[in-house]
């Protein structure tokens, strides 16, 4: 901001700075207020709700203390949802980071059609999740799906995919990885372009091999990108919902709860069965899990790398 001396009366320089600070705070205050009302307040309300037997269709909503939480401990479906969510995260996050980095490195090597390839990889990310999920249902249909047709062509046995409790989770994860890959590639391309070429030139002169350059230069200097990807990726997998709902719409989280996630279970308890108190208790648990994991990741993954 430039203030022309003619239009602004003379003041002490500190005063102008102070006014600018006040302006900045004022502008920050609005989003903050919004954040407090729309995000923070409901979180606190959910915390309170989790201590009540709060059924939306009951006239009395009695206080039950920790009963919702002790019910959680015994709830087999919640246990299954937790395990599934962990599996989604443990398979999905590494898969999309490794694939994303691989694709980004390859894209960095080519000159011709690089823009086209980049757009192709990014397309799934901007495709509506629901539409993609429904298309995948057909792709992986045991009866008509092209994937099984291909397997048969290779003389491999056709697979049940989404209709089998054993394969549904992996198939679902594949969809999510496919969708996130484009974004991951863009992140890594940006990260790679930020690494100065001079490091590689110096390494070449010193006679370092290609793989040494990757392990000693590329990977360490990509650390901020990787940490960012791991943290945001983990959070998004911990909140996985839309894909799971739409891949098995009439038995959401099925078959036999094999694709159930914590977020979907919250939704089913809250809006399918109207048990808001219990759903809130699960929300609180999910919140704590995400918070702890994120803090741990930031603590242990972040490394300052300087050459």
């Amino acid at each position, binding site marked *: 901001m430039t203030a022309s001396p003619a239009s602004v009366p003379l003041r002490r320089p500190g005063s102008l700075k102070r006014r600018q600070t006040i302006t900045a705070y004022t502008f920050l205050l609005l989003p903050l207020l919004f954040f407090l009302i729309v995000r923070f307040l409901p979180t606190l309300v959910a915390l309170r709700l989790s201590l009540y037997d709060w059924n939306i*269709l009951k006239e009395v909503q009695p206080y039950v203390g920790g009963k919702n939480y002790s019910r959680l401990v015994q709830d087999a479906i919640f246990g299954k949802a937790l395990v599934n969510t962990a599996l989604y995260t443990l398979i999905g996050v590494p898969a999309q980071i490794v694939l994303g980095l691989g694709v980004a490195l390859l894209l960095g090597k080519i000159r011709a059609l690089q823009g086209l390839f980049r757009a192709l990889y990014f397309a799934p990310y901007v495709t509506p999740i629901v539409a993609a999920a429904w298309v995948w249902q057909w792709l992986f249909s045991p*009866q008509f799906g092209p994937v099984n047709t291909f397997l048969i062509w290779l003389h491999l046995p056709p*697979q049940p995919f989404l*209709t089998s409790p054993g394969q549904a989770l992996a198939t679902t994860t594949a969809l999510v990885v496919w969708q996130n890959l484009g974004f991951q590639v863009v992140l890594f391309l940006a990260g790679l372009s930020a690494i100065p070429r001079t490091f590689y030139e110096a390494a070449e002169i010193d006679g370092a091999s290609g793989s040494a350059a990757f392990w000693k230069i590329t990977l360490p200097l990509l650390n901020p990108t990787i940490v960012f990807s791991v943290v945001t990726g983990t959070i998004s997998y911990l909140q996985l919902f839309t894909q799971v709902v739409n891949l098995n719409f009439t038995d959401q989280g*099925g078959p*036999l709860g094999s694709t159930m996630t914590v977020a979907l279970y919250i939704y089913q308890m809250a809006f399918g*069965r109207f048990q808001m108190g219990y759903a809130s208790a699960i929300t609180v648990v999910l919140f704590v899990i995400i918070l702890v994991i994120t803090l741990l990741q930031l603590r242990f993954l972040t490394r300052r790398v300087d050459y």
Partner: protein
Amino acid sequence: MKKLLTLALGLSIASAAAAPVTITYWQYDYASKVTAINELIKKFEAANPDITVKQENFPYDAYSQKVASSVPAGQGPDVVNLYYGWLPQYVDAGYLQPLPTKDFPTVLTDATYAPMVKTAKMNGKYYALPTAVRTLAVFYNKDLFKAAGIKTPPKTWDEFIADAGKIVQGAPPRYTTLGFGIQPDGQDYHVLREVLVRQFGGQPYSKDGKTVTYNSDAGAKAMAFYTDLQTKYKLGVPNFFPGNNSYRDAFIAGKVGMIIDGSFAVGTIKSGAKFDWGVAQLPVLTSNAKEKDNFGSYWVNGITKNAKGDKLAASVKFMKFLTSAETQRYWLQNVGEIPASRKLAADPALRKDPVFGPFVASLPYASSTVFVDEAGQRKAWVDAINTVLLQGNSPANAVKAAATSEQKVLDDYYKK
């Protein structure tokens, strides 16, 4: 001063009575129902110029949560359309007012409505009434039947299995045509609970609906029979077509010999199927079996606690209109659902109708389940069936698991 106030109050009441009333009606978004209600509202408003009815619709998948979340908010409609299975929850929540016996005498309602409508009666009072009712039947593809050399639809389950066996093509897991469009989470779990359990000599629930009674020999036999359709006879597979109405979509595409579906599917199938199809009553166990059973269901209209004073009076009038014989006839012609009145459903022309006839014939012996937590009870059954189909669980153990799980849902509701 006091006099003046009284006068003013009197005036305001008088003017309120004369003023036009607007009431709100909610139902889920289903094209033919929305259009029908709009037309009916026009008729109703013409007969009652001082009442305006405003219809509001919500997507089917979000409808129950929309209604439920309007309850604690104290907002929402004056007259509301609800699935009968949700009634206990809403009556318990104090959301619905009992229908005034002056306008809807209980004894008369008992006598004039289809027997299944009794599930809408709670604590001796009717809280809501349907315009139309639905039952289940077998939809069959006449072209596929002809190609397989079958002349008539099956009357017994043995015939059903034999016919479906002639039609099915391909082998698991790659079928190209199904004999029976099996779909546990479609209407099949109702067939299993309310039809097969009874046909094998059991009772699914106690009279008051508070206890499950299907964890029996009959229950295990019913579960074994149903799951055998896929595992032993290989007549079909669930989720043949991906998507929301898998079995129905596949039937409409001409890829399935038979499905079990409700009369509510008639409209969709009529407009979608490009082949000759027919409807038959649900099969029975043996040809001389007296035990005919069916699952009946219906959507009801009720008056919410929001309707007070003039709005209540207007809502009662609208309810009378919605349940009138004239509306029921209109509903049959325009939405394709069977009238809820015994007298109208007994109309000979309707009984002979090739499509509606089998549904109407099932009315006298159709039972409706008292649901207290429809989503929870449904899940108990779908998961139990799936443990047999997908994990090779024994039918007896699966029925036991369903019973434990559903009983818990019932206990959670009734205990307080």
